[in-house]
């Protein structure tokens, strides 16, 4: 497993997503209001909308293009739409945020 530092925890604002490019991958990072940090693929399965720019509610994010609702925990698109995005494990150590690939 590869562990990559992508941010310091204070780079992330609650409920405001950030994106990071790792090679060909683009990942959206979210700090939820409970402090947890989540990482998912930064592309909506519908039309590739940048999820990092969506409105965050609880552990869900709403795609800014067509309002699809996606769970940042398991990557599942919520009904009535269907699909899923990749999720990545996040580790936080000494204020540093790592994404595990």
């Amino acid at each position: 497993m590869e562990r990559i530092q992508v941010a310091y925890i204070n780079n992330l604002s609650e409920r405001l997503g950030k994106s990071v490019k790792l090679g060909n991958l683009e990942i959206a990072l979210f700090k939820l209001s409970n402090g947890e940090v989540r990482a998912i693929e930064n592309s909506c399965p519908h039309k590739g909308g940048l999820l990092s720019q969506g409105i965050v509610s609880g552990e869900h994010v709403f795609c800014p293009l067509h309002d699809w609702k996606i769970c940042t925990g398991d990557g599942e698109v919520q009904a009535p739409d269907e699909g899923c995005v990749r999720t990545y494990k996040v580790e936080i150590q000494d204020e540093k945020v790592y994404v595990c690939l």
Partner: protein
Amino acid sequence: MNFLLNKQTEKIIGSKRVKGLLFKDGSKVAADLVVMAVGIRPNVQLAKDSRIHVNRGIIVDDYMQTDSPNIHAVGECAEHREVVYGLVAPLYEQGKIVAEKICGVEGKKYEGSVVSTQLKVSGVDVFSAGRFMDSDDTKSIKVYDDFEGVYKKVVIQDNKVIGAVLFGNISDGPKLLGMINKGTDISDLPKVSILQSSADGSSESPVITVITMANSEVICGCNGVTKSTICEAIVENGLTTVDQVKNCTNASRSCGGCKPLVQDLLEHTLGDDFDQSDIKEAICSCTNLSREEVIEEIKGKKLKFVKEVMNVLGWKNDEGCSKCRPALNYYLGMLYPSEYNDEEESRFVNERLHANIQADGTYSVVPRMYGGVTNANDLRKIADVSDKYDVAMIKLTGGQRIDLLGIKKEDLPKVWAELDMPSGYAYGKALRTVKTCVGSRFCRFGTQDSTQLGIDLEKKFERLNTPHKVKMSVSACPRNCAESGIKDVGIVGVDGGFEMYVGGNGGTHLRAGDLLCTVKTEEEVFEFTSAFLQYYRETANYLERTSKWVERTGLEHVREMLFDQKSRQQLVERMDESLTHTKDPWKEIVENENKQEKLFQNLSSAVPSRV
């Protein structure tokens, strides 16, 4: 007996009970009892001038014919069997009779209408129908509830309901009217049950309900919508709320008096699928509360944060959704213009980043060009910025300005800094543009300087947050080159004044604007625009354009608010207060590195560390 005609009442004097009346001219009169009565006087001048027989109204026979064979009269100008009806429902019945007559169809005679009225008098709901005064040959059922402030009386003659009057709770009104019209025999019914409304939890009441009404029976008297029309619409279009029925069939659209009946029909037609909570329009699925209720609660409980509103009002989702969060953020900003701190994380991306997100994740930038007027210097800056930041397309917009497309998110603050022009708010629920024509400065037809007025209007109202986008325009003559007929606020200059159109829309809901008023001066244009936009800001649902809002609220009501000098003045004051708290968002971000970092910078990955 003294008749004080030509007096206008200023107020009723007395604290515990009435002591007298104060008139506008300062004179007073003592009183033990005040009786209020309101009426109308039919406009019969045309008939009089044509020598048609007129009494209080134009006298008609049972086929609505006047004493001149080819002339008919219906509605509130007509007097039939010595009765002049001042309500809309009899007009529909009379219209049918006269239509049959004109078409040569052998039809029924008009026998007169049983009318019902529904009013609010000093805040108390009042309903009356038919003959509700007792006489020797009538009996009545009465309920007087001091606790609930309710009085009900049903007058019965020969076992039939002939009239009713209700104070306080008028939910039985439509049901009683139905019984009067049908002449329902009540000899087998327990009398008390006649006055038991279904809202009391006794929905099993044996009284005639909407279910037993004939299919042809009219439910909505204002718009002549029958039971079968409503039931068919429910089934065919899968309607589930009163609001949907209203939009689909027009039932309950005017006075709203038949709403309970429509609701009963929905309940009956849908059976178990009927959801009580759908009765009113909730702002989103996170709550059952409507916009009005949420606003009342925010005001009443002095709630100041989006999260607080959701917590205190018991939101089903702790953090709301993409519908209610921006809506609540707007409502709070509208209610507390000086105190409220806008919540970036509750804004849709476009309004958070002050640019329009595009399909490929880039953004577009539209700088302000007041009134659609630009100059060589601004154009040069736009050209330079476009070269430097690889703008993919430079597009002229419908609102008379320039759109720079394909800009990367992280470049946005730099683009704004180099443009050094104000934000055009092309992304916002806000004033977009004021489109103008060339106007009297150049155009040989122009009657007003539409360009300058447009520039001034745009400068005054720019940055104002509104429930949805607002587009305006000013044309200098009725040729209307700036398309003022399809704008939220459209001004048409005419010789010596300005026509103001409102609620126009050239988009999803294509609609010609309504003429709000004609004013003489530019000052009045500003005053009425301010008042109109402020009333829209205060009462529209979030994401409701003025076109829908004007239709829902009614142009007449909007006029009442705006033509009353005091209420207009208050609206203008509140608008001015809101406008003093706006700042150019591009400039703010250009000057604030924290915001740039927080909203516009992507993360860059450090060296991978293996575990």
